[in-house]
């Protein structure tokens, strides 16, 4: 009796798992379609992008040269056997089919009987064509400058500030921390216009500075996350270090930072991702193309090459690859980061 109950419970669990897997698979298919389309389009020829119904695996008609003429290859039944022949000439419904190996072997047959042979053709050259079509090297360099220095600024300033909030008691410090947290709620638009005017006044408009310098003054998210992490570290080591004559500054770098690599890795990855992907701020501060980032460059490329979906997707894919690869390599850090800032926030 009891045995049966357990068995039936196992069966329902099994059923639940299967139903879950089916629904999840449908979801994954829906999620993957756009990604697959991006990859597929980036490898297509110019004419294959805008075909309907859409081609998922880029195929093109097979062509051969016969007597210096480009001919399509056909599969066509000749005297009962299906053979591969080149269509040399076409007059009305009938065509001249030639054996490409032996051009003297010719047949006059209705073209309608044959089927054009297609083969998979991947246009890897799209990637280099896209790179040549716009100064993406320049854009990548600008983006990397922002990624590297922006991340450096964020790490440096947020570590220092978080240490101040985590380990010191001072009048008003708690209030200041609350203010810091409140700034998360503040829409950036409220400060955007005066900040833009200040940066224009000191001639930083159309330079990378407005995108880099503010990172050296800490931001609420990362300070909050690092502070939480620092507070979870035992204080005994700090105190031992003080007795050994270590200054606060030295405690931060010798004791706190070495224990905080997971949290610092999260800050690094997210600030890199943000700097790489951001569109809004570069759009506001960068005007001339030589200062553009990849996000702006891609948008500019779109304006020029609307009709060339294959190059557009090749460029988009190239820009998306570094974040995707980073995500695959550092999944745990990513997911922890989202969770820490999400759940505890």
């Amino acid at each position: 009796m009891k045995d049966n109950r357990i068995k039936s419970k196992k069966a329902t669990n099994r059923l639940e798992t299967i139903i879950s897997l089916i629904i999840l698979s449908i979801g994954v298919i829906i999620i993957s379609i756009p990604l697959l389309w991006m990859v597929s389009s980036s490898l297509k020829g110019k004419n294959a992008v805008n075909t309907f119904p859409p081609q998922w695996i880029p195929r093109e008609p097979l062509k051969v040269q016969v007597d210096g003429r480009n001919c399509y290859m056909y599969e066509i039944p000749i005297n009962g056997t299906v053979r591969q022949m080149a269509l040399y000439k076409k007059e009305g419904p009938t065509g001249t089919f030639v054996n490409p190996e032996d051009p003297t072997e010719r047949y006059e047959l209705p073209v309608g009987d044959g089927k054009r042979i297609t083969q998979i053709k991947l246009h890897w050259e799209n990637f280099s064509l896209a790179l040549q079509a716009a100064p993406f090297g320049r854009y990548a360099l600008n983006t990397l400058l922002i990624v590297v220095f922006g991340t450096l600024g964020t790490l440096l300033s947020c570590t220092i500030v978080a240490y101040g909030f985590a380990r010191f008691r001072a009048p008003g410090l708690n209030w200041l921390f609350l203010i810091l947290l409140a700034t998360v709620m503040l829409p950036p638009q409220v400060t955007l216009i005066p900040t833009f005017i200040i940066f224009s006044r000191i001639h930083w408009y159309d330079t990378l500075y407005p995108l880099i310098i503010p990172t050296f003054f800490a931001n609420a998210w990362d300070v909050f996350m690092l502070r939480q992490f620092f507070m979870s570290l035992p204080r005994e080591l700090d105190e031992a270090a003080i007795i050994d004559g270590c200054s606060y500054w030295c405690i931060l770098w010798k004791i706190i930072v070495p224990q905080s690599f997971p949290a610092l890795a999260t800050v690094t990855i997210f600030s890199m991702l943000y700097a790489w992907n951001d569109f809004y701020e570069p759009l506001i501060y960068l005007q001339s193309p030589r200062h553009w980032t990849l996000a702006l460059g891609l948008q500019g490329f779109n304006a020029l090459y609307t009709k060339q979906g294959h190059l557009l997707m090749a460029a988009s894919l190239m820009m998306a690859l570094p974040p995707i690869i980073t995500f695959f390599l550092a999944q745990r850090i990513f997911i922890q980061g989202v969770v820490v800032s999400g759940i505890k926030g």
Partner: protein
Amino acid sequence: MFKQLSLRRRESLWGYVFISPWIIGFIVFTAGPMLASMILSLTHYNIAEPPTFVGLTNYVKLFTQDQKFWHALRVTMTFAFVAIPLNLAFGFIVAYLLNMKVPGVAFWRTIYYLPSVMPGVATALLWGLLFNPRVGVLNWILSLVGIKGPGWLASPQWALPALILMSLWGVGGGMIIYLAGLQGIPTSLYEAAQIDGANRLQQLLKITLPLMSPVIFYNLVTGIIGTFQYFTDAYVLTGGGPVDATLFYNLYLYKQAFTYRNMGYASALAWVLFLIVLAFTLLVFRSSDLWVYYEGEMRS
């Protein structure tokens, strides 16, 4: 430094020293600009000429004459009321299913989260192709089931639904947070419920949802704030059109500030945006007493 001070005073001073980068940043990049934008919102200012003080004119114009302001607000609200609940629901469902002890959680999680790490512009351009009314994948799929697809981004009726649909591609972002929350619910609770004879649905309604309500709440608040920041997709794909069908609030603000150079008017828009977001957030916080359950909390 600070050697002659008492230990207590020294600690305080060092505390201020360490947080000083943020204090300076706060004054220069947050508090100062906030004040400045409030003052600017009372002026006409196009950068080329000095600002002229006009009192509340910008706000009066905004509320009484500016059709586009109301329109942009309507577009943003529509998006918020449709896209946020859909994203919350789908994200929750996926996380809930993943939490049913299915094999290969890491694999599923990766695929679902992948769109969230892609650059916004690349995503937008990709969806631009998918939405193509003539040769796009979406209308091809619809044609397989015998439906003639709409014009999507080219159609005033379908452009906003298209962007909502596109936003669902990012359900993975919320899903990850839900999943972590679900994994944090002690299994002993479910076991106890099973002994009491509660079925799956009852467990979901009585255990999972109440314990997940803080996480849902968090996703709701960030969703609201995010909707008012919504920019890249609309800017890249539609530029606010066709016929302003996707003129999101933030896009309208951007146009006022950087296309028409109405810095004073745009500042007023920014402050109204701030107040709206604040009001919504407070409303959600207030209502949270009714539906958000915090463990260990004493009910008054």
